């Protein structure tokens, strides 16, 4: 029995010594992998639709010579719309109860940037004119549109009719006698100075107290903030404080592939519509119309998770560096009638991806 005692004592001693060994306190392990992140920043110009609306000099009513009363809409960087969709320009009275679809001439001015042999940037502008236009779908980040219509000859617009506002609606079906609910661009005569006013971009309402103005310039009036992070093939963007999208718009996220030498954009990668906080990550696609998704016209928080291996493989880099050559992640205000996977011009926030993600 003494041997048994010694045996048990030995076993217990080994157990105690093992339990008290010095290195046991070093139990931390880098098991969760490595991530890389960068902040989202607000670009100096966000390129949301902007421009000027000129009313006839004579005012709301026709002058003595209505053929000279012109209405001009100058619109910069609207999104290019998809098949079957179009922008339509309307004249309406103050209370927005009567509408006249305007027909006029459209000048499309496109500015392309190229490099000459010396490597300097060269801006090349081309313009095309289309006559008798009552709807158009052209747009883009390098496009300015000038739509001009004369008061005389517009069907349904009598000389005695008052023009209180000009509305540019987005139509996705057969155009009726009134614009669709997507009335995102407008100008009111009552807000005009010297017969012209800056475009209001937002959600139109007959009463100014009810309308929602997203921006009157290229830049939204509030500044979101947030960051993106990439870890083991999963990209996550957590950001906050976005204005509710104008009716007919939503927030989307794109990655932009750039030439690593010249910085010239080569391709875009659609990362999906923005989503709400985790873990639900509810879609914010309808935040333009669903008041439950916003608080006081603000999307308080977004959280988007993108598993990169679910995206088109031909657009991605190697598995260990899927966003190789991608220089930016953009949060874009996108027209719902535009092709979903085609990045619009309205870049609200942008993250310049670090070399640890893009490769160099």
């Amino acid at each position, binding site marked *: 029995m003494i041997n048994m005692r010694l045996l048990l004592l030995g076993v217990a001693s080994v157990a105690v010594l093992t339990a008290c060994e010095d290195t046991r306190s070093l139990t931390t392990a880098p098991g969760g992998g490595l991530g890389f992140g960068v902040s989202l920043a607000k670009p100096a110009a966000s390129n949301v639709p902007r421009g000027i609306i000129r009313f006839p000099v004579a005012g709301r009513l026709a002058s003595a010579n209505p053929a000279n009363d012109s209405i001009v809409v100058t619109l910069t960087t609207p999104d290019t719309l998809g098949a079957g969709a179009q922008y339509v320009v309307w004249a309406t009275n103050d209370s927005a109860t009567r509408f006249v679809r305007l027909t006029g001439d459209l000048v499309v001015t496109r500015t392309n940037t190229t490099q000459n042999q010396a490597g300097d940037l060269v801006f090349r502008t081309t313009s095309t004119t289309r006559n008798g236009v009552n709807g158009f779908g052209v747009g883009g980040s390098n496009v300015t549109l000038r739509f001009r219509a004369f008061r005389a000859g517009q069907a349904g617009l009598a000389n005695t009719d008052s023009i209180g506002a000009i509305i540019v609606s987005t139509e996705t079906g057969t155009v009726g006698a009134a614009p669709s609910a997507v009335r995102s661009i407008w100008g009111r005569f009552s807000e005009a100075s010297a017969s012209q006013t800056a475009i209001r971009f937002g959600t139109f309402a007959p009463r100014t107290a009810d309308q929602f103005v997203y921006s009157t310039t290229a830049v939204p009036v509030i500044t979101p903030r947030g960051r993106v992070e990439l870890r083991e093939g999963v990209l996550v963007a957590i950001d906050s404080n976005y204005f509710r999208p104008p009716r007919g718009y939503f927030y989307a996220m794109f990655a932009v592939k750039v030439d690593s030498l010249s910085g010239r954009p080569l391709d875009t990668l659609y990362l999906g519509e923005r989503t709400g906080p985790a873990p639900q990550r509810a879609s914010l696609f309808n935040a333009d119309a669903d008041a439950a998704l916003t608080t006081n016209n603000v999307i308080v928080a977004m959280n988007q*998770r993108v598993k990169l291996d679910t995206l088109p493989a031909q657009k991605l880099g190697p598995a260990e560096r899927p966003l190789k050559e991608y220089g930016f992640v953009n949060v874009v205000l996108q027209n719902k009638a535009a092709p979903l996977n085609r990045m619009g011009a309205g870049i609200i926030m942008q993250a310049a991806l670090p070399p640890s993600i893009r490769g160099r």
Partner: protein
Amino acid sequence: MKRYALIMAALALGAGVAGAQVSPKRFAVVTRLGVMTPERAASQDMAGLIGLDAEYALNKYFGIGTALDIGRGNNRREDFVQRLRFGNPAVAGGDTIFYQFLGQPVNTLNLALMGTARIPGKVSPYAMAGVGTYVLIMDAQANGSTRTLSGASFSVGGGVNFQFSEKYGMQLDARATQLQGFKRERLDPSDGRFPNVWFPEDIPAPPAAKNTALNTAFTLGFRYVPGAGN
């Protein structure tokens, strides 16, 4: 006749076993060695366990005593993910984030007053129940200070005692001890300062925390009755 013979044989065998096994009004000391497996929500790994029971036999069926269990294991480090950020995310180059599983050794002490009930014999099954107190002692080096967690505990269990002689025996023992007032967050040396809010799907979170923790222990014990015969 056959039935009678069997009954007599059984009684004779039982009397012999009973006489050899139990030492009423005496103390028995059991040293135990084994493992302790906390329930998943407790976020602790399986741990080694040393136990010491001191039992006073009121009679050959019942006893009272104390039980001390000392477990030395680690917290389940993958339940305590730390997001450690280096660099400045607002400048070119961004930042680098390490996702660390933060572990630490945890000592578990449980002291209980217990009662036992047994069926006498050379192979003697028994059951026990106890009430007491526990303390979890965290690693001072990992926490930067002393840190403990304590509360009441309740134990139930049972096992089998194999009697070699009146004095010596071995026992297999299984016990479940429920720790009351358990606070899992106390096992996190960082106090939740660096949570993983970015990749919850990729680094799964542990099950929901509970305010109790159930530890199940399996031990092999050496039983010794001082002052008994051989």
